[in-house]
């Protein structure tokens, strides 16, 4: 086996990392749009509390976030019995890895979308209303297209964050090869064993390719939107 050949463990880690990041972003995005809209546009009791809660994963040590996830969603956690009754297990599963990544990426996605929402001129939405657009249509045909660049930015930043997430993931779902071992936790695992420099190098290269690919994609999308 030459030092360039990618082994099955690494391939599994790569595949899982991509799956986790995609699922995390796909889950976060709609919720993030709703939360960003509430934070940017609505005035309600608990506004500050919601804002703080959203930002919590950003300021807490990731290990603590992972631990809190265990406390809430673990088998013996707050919602453990409910989830078990539904046949869902999150702790120590790939679904749990996606949840951990989603929670960690969430504040970044919300921030990007909220900034975009705050830049939308409400007078345009008012004008659309006089042209016969109901509030839901205003959102779909005016607000959403106008925040699209912010949505893409949020998704890319969230994707990158989910891809590199380590602390909360390893605490919540551990480091099981083929099940919960993402690229980041695989690198960590390999680093524990002496003489695995080649494997470490390969995985770092994979991480770099993924990250640059995501950045490139976001650039291309952003440019396309500007041209429109």
């Amino acid at each position, binding site marked *: 086996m030459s030092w360039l050949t990618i082994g099955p463990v690494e391939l599994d880690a790569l595949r899982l990392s991509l799956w986790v990041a995609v699922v995390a972003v796909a889950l976060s995005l709609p919720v993030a749009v709703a939360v960003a809209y509430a934070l940017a546009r609505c005035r309600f009791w608990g506004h500050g509390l919601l804002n703080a809660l959203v930002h919590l994963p950003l300021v807490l040590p990731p290990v603590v976030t992972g631990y809190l996830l265990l406390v809430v969603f673990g088998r013996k956690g707050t919602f453990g019995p409910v989830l078990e009754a539904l046949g869902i297990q999150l702790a120590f599963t790939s679904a749990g890895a996606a949840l951990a990544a989603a929670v960690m990426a969430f504040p970044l996605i919300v921030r990007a979308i909220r900034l975009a929402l705050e830049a939308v001129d409400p007078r345009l939405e008012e*004008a659309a209303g*006089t042209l*016969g*657009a109901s*509030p839901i249509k205003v959102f779909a*045909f*005016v607000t959403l297209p*106008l925040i699209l660049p912010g949505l893409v930015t949020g998704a890319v930043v969230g994707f990158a964050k989910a891809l590199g997430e380590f602390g909360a993931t390893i605490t919540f779902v551990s480091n099981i090869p083929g099940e919960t071992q993402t690229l980041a936790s695989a690198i960590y695992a390999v680093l524990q064993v002496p003489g695995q420099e080649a494997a470490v190098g390969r995985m770092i290269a994979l991480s770099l390719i993924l990250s640059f690919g995501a950045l490139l994609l976001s650039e291309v999308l952003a440019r396309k939107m500007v041209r429109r």
Partner: protein
Amino acid sequence: MSLDLDIHVKRGRFTLEVQVTAPAGVTVIFGPSGSGKTTLLRAVAGLEAVDRGQIVIEGSNLTERPAHRRAVGYLFQEPRLLPHLNVRGNLKFAQKMGREVALQSFDEVIALLELGNLLERTPFALSGGEAQRVALGRALLSAPKCLCLDEPLAALDQGLKHRILPYLERLRDRTDIPILYVTHDAAEMARLADHIVLMQAGRSVLSGPAEVILSDPAAVPYLGVRAAGTVISGQVMARDPTTGLAVMGFDGGQLILPELNQTKGRSIRIRIPAQDIVLAREKPKGLSALNVFEGTITQLHAGQGPGVMVQFKTGETLFLARVTQYSAQKMGLAVGQTIFAIVKATAFDPTGIGT
């Protein structure tokens, strides 16, 4: 079609209480800033909540309906075009939102506002005047039962205003829906208004047909002395190509107008500011002024300043002239007297002549 309004809005220390009926045609809402003109329009369009009252168009009560179900077209001071759509997308937006727009009206509106070469442009690539024309077209293509134009020319410079005004005049002449037009520009009002509502401090102080209000001495305090005057509608009867002078006939006589690029037979309307009319007790001789006509004084109105407003009637047309109190006393002006009015042909501002 007509629009019946009874609107009560209270916002802190400001109260708006207006009862107005706006028939088909342009009803200009005129008043100083802060008099509640914009609030009134926003209430009609459903953009401002009403505390009490009714908004009835063509017999159907809109008061409880949200803005998107009122079919009130609104042209704001700024164009508010949707930046992610091109001009065509903006014009067709209301249709996409489910408003039923007659098929031929798209082409009609394009022709009326000359939007043909702009269709594929993005809003960023439009000048201020073009953007406002597109916004007007977009409002027209939302199948409106009533149009609200909120100082649509305020953000444009003087030259552009005079390029857009003819479009608005054409619009006025071709639709039969009520148009509420807010402005604080007297010249705009004189060119466009069929009816006038004068607003002050949240109340309508005077309202009626434009010719009546503009030549009513009682309206002068609200219009301002510069805006007061006579609006005459008539037809171009002849035009002399060598002198460039045109003759316009109206109910009560003829007027000679300068540099008028209007063809014979066309209806036009002109405004004669009260301060541009000179009065004489006897028929003047050897004057350079081309327009002299006889009338009977119907009202004398001394204002707060040094001027006196004299309303007189020639034929069926009411004129308004402003003279000093001193002249009025010296000439012994009184209601019922016969008087001669002198108007210089050059007193007409060619840009103030509308159709």
